[in-house]
């Protein structure tokens, strides 16, 4: 059940509760803040996350500059990212639509990400350049056991978030593995 009217902390808590209780749950992501809340919830509840995104904007300064600073979501996100990276059995795999010209220089949470890269918890791939219509492929993220976020608007970061929809989860896994077949690892 969605409750976008709630503040972002309640939104985050509801998602965590649904995952922990193994409930079927859907909610709508309106903006960057909700996007951050969802990924944060994934980092908190899952040990394996796979993501197809533009150029990892959620890990960039530019993204967080547009997020409401009154909320605690940034701190929660950082805390969850850190604790996700502390367990060597965890995995965060990202396929980026395009590798940015300036590389990953303007990353936020650099220490956490570098640590994850060193431990091989974070793996980044890039879609090869000859793929047509890259920009029309929707961005999506899925986390074990059954947590999916599919973006509808790449600029607004609006998305559907589905918990315990096994069909969507299976499709996402399937599409991701196809996509990864056309990606190459980025050596950072």
């Amino acid at each position, binding site marked *: *059940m969605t409750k976008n009217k709630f503040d972002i902390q309640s939104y985050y808590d509801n998602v965590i509760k649904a995952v922990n209780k193994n409930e079927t749950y*859907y*909610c709508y992501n309106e903006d960057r803040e909700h996007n951050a809340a969802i990924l944060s919830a994934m980092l908190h509840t899952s040990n394996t996350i796979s993501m197809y995104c533009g150029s990892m904007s959620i890990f960039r300064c530019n993204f967080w500059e547009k997020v409401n600073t009154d909320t605690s979501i940034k701190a929660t996100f950082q805390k969850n990212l850190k604790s996700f990276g502390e367990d060597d059995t965890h995995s965060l795999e990202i396929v980026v639509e395009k590798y940015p010209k300036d590389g990953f220089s303007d990353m936020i949470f650099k220490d956490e990400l570098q640590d994850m890269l060193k431990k091989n918890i974070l793996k980044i791939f890039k879609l090869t350049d000859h793929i047509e219509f890259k920009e029309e492929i929707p961005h999506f993220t899925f986390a074990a056991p059954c947590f999916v976020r*599919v973006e*509808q608007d790449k600029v607004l970061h609006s998305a559907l978030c589905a918990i315990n929809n096994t069909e969507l989860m299976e499709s996402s896994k399937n599409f991701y593995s196809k*996509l990864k077949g056309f990606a190459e690892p980025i050596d950072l």
Partner: protein
Amino acid sequence: MIDLLGKSQTLFGVLATVVVLCIFKGSSNFIFQIVDEIRERIKERVKKLKVSVDLGPSQQKLSAKLKDESDTSKAERYGKLMSRISELQMRMTLIDMVAFFDEYAKKFERIKTGDEILRGPLFTFLYIFVIFLFDEYLRSSLMPGKEIMFTAVSFFTLFSSLYWALIWLNYIHRCLCQKDYKVYTLSDKYRYLVVGGIAVVYLIIYFAILFVCHILLDKHYFFLAKIFYVLGILIPCVLFGLYFIYTHPKSNNGYYMSVIFHLVGGIFFSVVFAIMCHVLISWKQHFELLLVSDVSIELTKLSIFLFSILNGLMLPFFCPLLCSYWVYRFQARAQVLKKQDEANKMLDDINKEMDRVM
């Protein structure tokens, strides 16, 4: 004197001059240039193909509902419908299409890299050159065995046509079908051994065919003998050709060696078969019935002309072009239209259910 080319010598000379322009890659090769340009245009059209179904209105309607819905069961229904739309979006826009474009990029690459476009004219140029030599031989009043040489020309044209028919069919098959065959390379030593073995086997088969033909001719089955003779020569060639073309396509040290090897091989077998045939005719007259009758000079001349123009100019031009068009029109576009129909049907179902739920 056998006047093989006659007044058509000039025509063949011109044909050879035009064909020689097409044996190297580059701006002077007009076939290569034109085909390259048209193929790239068709390839661009394939790249622009996409499944276009407007999911926006349904998506917005459901997003608005899901955003404000506080009833758990209703939110779940909206969420499920949105999931189906998201799945549809992922499927049609293009994660499947990524594989789709990759498949067609490979096909266009195969069309582009096929060396037949250059090999065909090169073989044809050498073929015309050899025909000119045969023609001079047949014109000369000094040279012996003109009947044998004329039969050899007919065999040579037959072998060349068969060899290139197989190569062009293989090119079309390679370009249009997706399947990649497992290929093997032969070492130099092993290659010559296999080729030598095949030559010996082929000669033995030819002896056997002549023996069977002798029996059939003796029993006055003339037509059957003729058919058996022609098929007996062609079928082993086709089988050997298919074996090499699919299992050892790169076993000739590049296409120059391949062209020269097949040309020399063709001449060798043509002369040997012709000599054997005429020796038998001098022994038993009925063997003459195996060869083509009175109109054979005109028929041979026509065959030479058709082979030269088809293999030297027409097929190197039309095969890649028609393959490109076929890939676009009957494979890529047809596949996209099919996907679009499927996507529209799925969206209709989702919309119907959405109307029911709302």
